[in-house]
C-alpha cells in the first residue's frame, strides 16, 4: 500500500511537470483526439509533446511490458495513473485500434518477433492500424466472411472486400480476417493476418453516414501479396484470435466513461421550477429512471472489473455489458434531443457547433450495431449464459 501511495505521488508530480495545460481539458470534438500514424497531423505542439512524453514513459499503454513499449505497470498502478489523469482532466495522449485490439491480440497470440516488431510503434503512435472484419454479406454473421487469401509459396494473395473498416483511409496497416481454408465449417479456415495498407492492390472508399461523417470505409483487395509470416497464431485458426478480441472489445465498448450527468445538462438547459425540480416534470422522471439505470450499469462495470481481479472470468458476460451499455447510451442521446428541443436538430452553424448534438445522437445509433448487434448479444447471453437450447 505504501508503495502504491509513493507511486501515486510520483505520478502526480510527473503529470504536473509534463502534462501541458492545453491537454488538461475535456475533448470537445473528434478533432481533439490523437490517433497517431503516418497520416496524422497534430493539432498542436502540445498534443505532440504530450504524446511523446507519455510514450517515453510507456504510459500510452501502461500495462504492456516495457520491452514492447509499455509502462510495465500492475493493474493497481495503472488504475492510479488513470485516476490521477482524470483528476487533472488530462486527455488520453493516444487512442488507437492498435492499443485496443491488435495489441491485446498480439500479447496473447503473437510470436516474440511479432511483438517486438509491431507493439513498440503502436505505443509511440507511429503506426496506425485498422480492423478488417466485416464484409457486405457478413455483418452479424462474421464467420461467413468470403475474402480469400490463397497460398502462393510463402505468400498469400488476398482478394475480396471489407466494409465498416474504421478510418481505413487514414490507417497504415490492417489486421484482417481472411479465408485461407474451406468455407465449411465456417469457423475454421479463417486466418488473422497483418499487412501494409500501402501494398499494391489495396484501395479504400469512405462511407458517408447519416450523421454526415465518414469514419468508415469500404476496403478492396485486388491480388494483394502478404507474407505468410504475417499471420498471427496458427493459419486457419484466426477465429480464435477474433473471438478473443470481440470479447475484449465488448467490455471496452460497454464503458460509458466519465460523462457529464444528463441531469446537469437538463438543469442547465431547462432550469428548475419553484420546487427545485426540473422544468419538465415528465422528462425529470425519465431522466431519473435513466440515471438510476446508468448508475447501476457503472456499478456493474466496476463489479465486473473487481470480479476479474478476483480471478473470475468475464467471458460471455461482456455481451451483457455491451448490450446494456450501448442501449443506455442511445437512450441518453434521445434524452439530449428532448432536453434541447428544436435547438438539438440544428445541423450547421456556430451556435450548435455544426450540429454536434444531432450528429452525436445519430452516431449512437450505430452503437448497438457495430462490434456485434444487440440482437447478437442477446443471442450470446441466451445460449452461453442462460444455456437456452438451440433448435
Amino acid at each position, binding site marked *: 500500500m505504501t508503495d502504491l501511495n509513493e507511486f501515486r505521488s510520483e505520478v502526480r508530480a510527473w503529470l504536473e511537470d509534463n502534462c501541458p495545460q492545453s491537454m488538461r481539458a475535456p475533448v470537445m470534438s473528434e478533432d481533439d483526439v490523437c490517433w497517431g500514424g503516418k497520416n496524422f497531423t497534430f493539432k498542436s505542439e502540445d498534443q505532440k509533446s504530450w504524446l511523446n512524453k507519455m510514450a517515453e514513459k510507456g504510459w500510452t499503454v501502461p500495462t504492456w511490458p516495457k520491452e514492447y513499449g509499455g509502462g510495465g505497470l500492475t493493474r493497481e498502478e495503472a488504475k492510479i495513473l488513470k485516476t490521477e489523469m482524470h483528476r487533472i482532466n488530462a486527455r488520453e495522449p493516444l487512442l488507437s485500434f492498435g492499443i485496443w485490439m491488435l495489441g491485446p491480440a498480439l500479447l496473447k497470440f503473437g510470436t516474440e518477433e511479432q511483438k517486438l516488431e509491431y507493439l513498440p510503434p503502436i505505443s509511440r503512435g507511429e503506426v496506425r492500424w485498422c480492423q478488417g472484419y*466485416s464484409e457486405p*454479406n*457478413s*455483418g*452479424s*454473421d462474421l464467420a*461467413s466472411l468470403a475474402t480469400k487469401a490463397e497460398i502462393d509459396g510463402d505468400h498469400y494473395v488476398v482478394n475480396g472486400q471489407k*466494409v*465498416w473498416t474504421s478510418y481505413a483511409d487514414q490507417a497504415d496497416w490492417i489486421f484482417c480476417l481472411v479465408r485461407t481454408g474451406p468455407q465449411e465449417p465456417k469457423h475454421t479456415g479463417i486466418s488473422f493476418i497483418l499487412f501494409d495498407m500501402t501494398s499494391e492492390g489495396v484501395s479504400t472508399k469512405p*462511407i*458517408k*453516414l*447519416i450523421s*454526415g461523417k465518414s469514419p468508415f470505409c469500404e476496403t478492396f483487395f485486388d491480388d494483394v501479396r502478404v507474407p505468410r509470416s504475417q499471420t498471427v497464431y496458427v493459419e486457419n485458426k484466426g477465429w480464435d484470435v477474433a473471438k478473443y478480441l470481440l470479447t475484449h472489445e465488448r467490455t471496452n465498448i460497454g464503458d460509458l466513461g466519465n460523462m457529464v450527468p444528463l441531469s446537469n445538462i437538463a438543469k442547465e*438547459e*431547462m432550469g428548475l421550477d419553484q420546487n427545485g425540480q426540473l422544468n*419538465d*416534470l*415528465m*422528462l425529470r422522471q425519465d431522466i431519473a429512471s435513466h440515471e438510476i439505470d446508468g448508475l447501476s450499469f457503472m456499478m456493474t462495470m466496476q463489479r465486473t472489473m473487481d470480479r476479474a481481479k478476483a480471478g473470475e472470468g468475464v467471458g460471455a458476460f461482456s455481451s451483457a455489458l455491451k448490450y446494456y451499455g450501448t442501449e443506455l447510451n*442511445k437512450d441518453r442521446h*434521445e434524452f439530449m*434531443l*428532448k432536453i*434541447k*428541443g*428544436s*435547438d*438539438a*436538430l*440544428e*445541423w*450547421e*452553424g456556430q451556435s450548435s457547433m455544426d*450540429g454536434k448534438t*444531432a450528429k452525436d445522437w*445519430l452516431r449512437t*445509433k*450505430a452503437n*448497438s*450495431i*457495430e462490434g456485434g*448487434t*444487440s*440482437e447478437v448479444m*442477446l443471442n450470446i447471453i441466451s445460449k452461453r449464459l442462460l444455456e437456452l437450447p438451440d433448435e
Partner: protein
Amino acid sequence: MALVYNEDQTLLKESAVGFFKERSPITAFRSLRDKRDETGYDSDLWSEMAEMGFTSLLLSEEEGGTGFGYVGAGIVAEAMATTLVSSPFTASCVLATEILKSTGSAILERVSSGEAIATVALDETGHYSPESVKTKAIADGDGYKLSGMKTFVPEGHTADHIIVLARTDDDRLSLYTVQKGAANLITDRTVMADSRNWAKLTFEGTPATLLSDDGLEKLIPAIDKVNIVLAAELLGLTQAAFDMTTAYLKERKQFGKIIGTFQGLQHRSAHLFAEIEVTRSIILAALQAADASAPNLSMLASAAKAKACKTAELATNEGIQMHGGIGMTDEYDIGFFIKRARAVSNLYGGQNYHTDRFATLSGY
C-alpha cells in the same frame, strides 16, 4: 362519424399517393438536399399541388376550396411524408390558412391558391411555449413595430407573409403579419438535421400589421388542428419507415437465413404494427374532430400528437437498428425518416408536452 374514409376521401388518398410517388419520389428530396436548394422545395411541384387542389383543402367549395377539410389535409400530409415531399403545405395551407380564415384576412385567397406562402413564427427557444413569448409589439402610427427573435420557423426565409405572435405594451399576446423583406427583418435560414427549411427571424423594429388581438384564442385551436395534421405526417413517416424495414427483413440474409425469419425481429415488428394501427385510429378520430370543431378537440389533438411522436420514435429507431450497418449510411433512405420524424415531433410540442397537456385537460 364512422372511422373510415368515405368514397371521396378514398379517391383523394389514391390520387395524392399516386401523385407524390410519381412526381416527387424520395430521390427528389435527396436531390434538393444535395444541391443545397435555397428555397428547400420544388416550386413546379408546388404549382401542380395547387392545381390538384391540395393548397385549398381547408376551404369549402363556396369559399373556392376543395372542401376536404382536415381529414383531407391529414390524407395529403400522410401521403407527402411517405416520399419525404418537402413543401410549404403544413405551414401555409394548414396553420396559416386556419388563422387567416378565422381572422378573415384578405391574404387568404392568394395563400389558398398557392400563389403566396404564409407561415407562423412562434417559438423563441428550443421548446414550444406560446405563453412565454417575449417578442414585443409597439404601436407605431397605423401599424406596429416588432422586436425580438423567433426560431424554428418553417419556411421562414421563403414565406411571403409571416404571422408573428408578440406581446403588447400591456402584456397581451397578439398576432401580427410581417411581409417578406420588410425593413429591419433579419432572416437566417437554418440548416437542420432534416434538411428542410427552417429559419431564425430577428425583428429589430420591423413594421407589422395587427391581425388579431384576442391573445391565444385564435391561435390555440389552430395549433391543435395543425398538430393533428403533423401527427398524420408522422404517421406517414412511420408507415414508410416500417414498410421499408419490413421489406428489408424479407430480403437480407445472415447466418444463412433471411433475417425476417428470426422470431426476435418478428415479434418486435408485430408489436410495432399494432402500435402503428392504434396510432392511425386516434389520428383519424382527431382529424374528424378537427373538421367538426368538437368540444374535446384539444384533448384529442394532444392524444394524437403524443401518440404519433412516440410511435414515430419507436419505428424510426427500430428501422435503423433492423437495417444494421446499411441503415447508418447516408446512401440509404431510412436515415431521412428518423431525422424528419424528430423535427416534426418537436414542432408545436412533442410527446412529453402533449402527454402533460392531455392530463391537464383531463383534469388531473
